[in-house]
């Protein structure tokens, strides 16, 4: 298998680290070789969190090169467009949770918030397939990472990683009430086809 590069990003506190760890372990349960690295300097203070994940044979560095990601997984809209711009290859795929955490400049009034239109235009130009996750009824915003995990699974965005592998990964990492809550959401979203209505194909259609 040709290496499959995943670039996972969001804002500190959104659960990028956990999502990355689940995908890493899911890939391992699927029998894929996997390497990952988190880059999270001052992330906890509302900064950008990024995790690189590389799957397949003949991978050495854990880091995804500029514009070599096959898939970007973003937990926030500004970080989605930033990652598409810096990390995603042309004709790659983006899956993002459509929430907005305004960066400092937007709040101060010196920068413009990134709109869905801008994101779609940029993705369209680059031939990027966009999967948007929103309108999910979440008990806790910190479960956005599990909502997106379920959608990755439904859309089979990671070749070779199936539902049972992700479930195993969830069970590796969580227990008791936390596991139950997250499994409930994961299963609900994997089994309910209605939730996928928001897919937008950015290639101009």
């Amino acid at each position, binding site marked *: 298998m040709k290496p499959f590069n995943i670039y996972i990003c969001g804002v500190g506190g959104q659960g990028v680290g956990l999502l990355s760890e689940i995908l890493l372990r899911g890939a391992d349960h699927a029998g894929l070789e996997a*390497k990952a690295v988190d880059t999270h300097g001052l992330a906890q203070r509302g900064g950008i969190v990024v995790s690189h994940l590389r799957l397949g044979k003949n991978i050495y560095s*854990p880091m995804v090169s500029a514009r070599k990601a096959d898939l970007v997984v973003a937990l926030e809209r500004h970080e989605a467009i930033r990652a598409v711009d810096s990390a995603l290859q042309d004709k790659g795929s983006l899956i993002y949770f459509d929430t907005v*955490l305004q960066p400092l400049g937007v709040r101060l009034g010196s920068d413009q918030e990134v709109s869905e239109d801008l994101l779609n235009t940029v993705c369209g130009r680059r031939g990027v397939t966009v999967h948007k996750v929103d309108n999910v009824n979440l008990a806790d915003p910190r479960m956005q990472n599990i909502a997106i995990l379920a959608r990755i699974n439904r859309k089979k965005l990671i070749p070779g990683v199936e539902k049972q592998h992700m479930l195993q990964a969830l069970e590796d990492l969580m227990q008791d009430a936390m596991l139950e809550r997250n499994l409930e959401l994961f299963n609900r979203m994997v089994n309910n086809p209605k939730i996928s209505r928001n897919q937008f194909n950015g290639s101009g259609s």
Partner: protein
Amino acid sequence: MKNMGEMLLRRPPFQEIVMGNTALVRAMIESGTRVVTSYPGSPTPEIATAIQSIPKEQRPFYFEFSTNEKVAAEVAFGAALNGHLSTVFFKSVGLNVAADTFVQLSLLNIVGGMVVILGDDPGANSSQNEQDNRHFAYLSYTPVFEPANPTEAYLYYKEAASLSRELGKVVILRLTTHVCHAKEKVTFAGWYPPEKDDRPRFSTANGPYIPLVSAVYPMKERALRQLSEIETWVEQRNMHTMVDNKSRRGIITSGLVYLSLLEVLEGIKDKPDVLKLAMVYPIPRRVILEFLQSHDEVKILEELDDELERSIKAMAYDQHISTRILGKNDINDWIGEYTPDKVHDIIANTWPDSIDTRDPVPHPLKEIPLRPPQMCPGCGHRSAFHAIGEVLAEDDITVADIGCHTLGYHEPYNLGELLICMGASTAIGSGLALFNNTRRVVAFLGDSTFFHAGLPGIINALFNNHNLTLIVMENGTTAMTGHQDNPATGRNFNDSSEAIPIRKVLEGLGIQTIFETDTYNQVELRTLVKKAVARDGFNVVIAKHPCMLLFAKKQRKAKGSISHHVHIDQEKCHNINACIQKFGCPSFVRNNDGTISVNNELCIGDGSCIQTCPTKAITR
């Protein structure tokens, strides 16, 4: 894994996906390490997280967070003199703090063995510089292993521990940020704990331990003689890696750079040979000589500074070797992390015929706003900066220190205009106050930093009658690195301990003016800062509020969610924007229609913003 602690203590061999920092802890256990010390600093604090996952009574070694890196190194050294294999770990710039102690260690017979784990930070991901700590190895004659990934971090620690014990010599294990944080499946050996023998073995017969006149030369001689012994030791264990591609061209490299290089070589048809060094100081002379002699051209591919390059060129000169040695090309080769992209560019520059240049990556789209890190919702530092900014004059000088409060330099506060390192603010402020009767000087200092390196500057300000105000930003924890306890917390890593209140320390020093208030009480904080800066001499304001990130975490854990939020009464709001533009909590949202609302995903309902609204539109 659900239970990291159980995994780390497992007896039979196993495989597990872990990050480099976690792999190190298993290596410590298998090696029989007895004492481990540290001061928290990225990229290493997750080593302590892994240690903490093992219940205290089952932990096979003693661990402490010491007050600073120098103290941590001293505790580990003392333990090793009693025969206990010890380890100290800290971040890149932590070695500067530990340096006075560290540079002596290599001269001493450390009978138990001692490993120094360094978390260097090429790319300055979370440090104030990207200093190359291999320089310290040359300075102190200390051997340096450089692992490339979690597997090697695990294996090399065990080698470093054996070497250290065998020679009674301190050994450095130098990791870089993305070795510490890389994750992969590591194959671990079994663990068969030997009987512990903790009898204190300190004896002057193992010395000398007093480095005075007559002892200094023999101690230095021993350290220098050991270098060639170490070179042989590593060579005999076949730790260096040779990738033979039958080329006349070769590359010498080490650490994570090796993996970046392999990644780049995947795309090359005529691959050069590669020599990957497991130990970069002392350099393995025989291995390198052989490599030079069997190639026409050899590129030295090393991140940050040119230490290998200088040593290898000097050696080639002495040996009359005519192989073309290619080192750093320009200043860019000295700067930044050697990611696969960077290595690609360097190889394309070195041998343009061997690999295509990369497609240029376009400049980032200008429509994407930057996202600087910032203080969390509810952070007491925000309330402090908001209040302090209101009473200081435009040209007053504010000095920052290391900690979350460093972020005060961002808009909209612009407080803390210069920063060097841990604990430096008071003394820098003292200097700024000399010949200065017009611009008041205010220094900021966090509570963990107060104990770490802040005290000497404070005592100096008293001793030499400097004129400035110190604001201690006390949040009750070491927040930036993941909430480690500090001496004022009343807890250490293992137990409860008698809290050392900062106020009492300052009183004990005899400081006349010590004001103290909770930062949420902005009216009082303004009054106190105003009073303090109006007085001559050295005055202190303790601006305290517990870390709210920690508070929010605890609340979520206890109640499952944050129980309340603030909201903005749009009837009362006059769009003055004080909340979002001056107070600047990230929970506020600027809507397209110009109104301000609250993002409940972020708001923790602390209400510190309520008093900042002139029209009282914010309610809870």
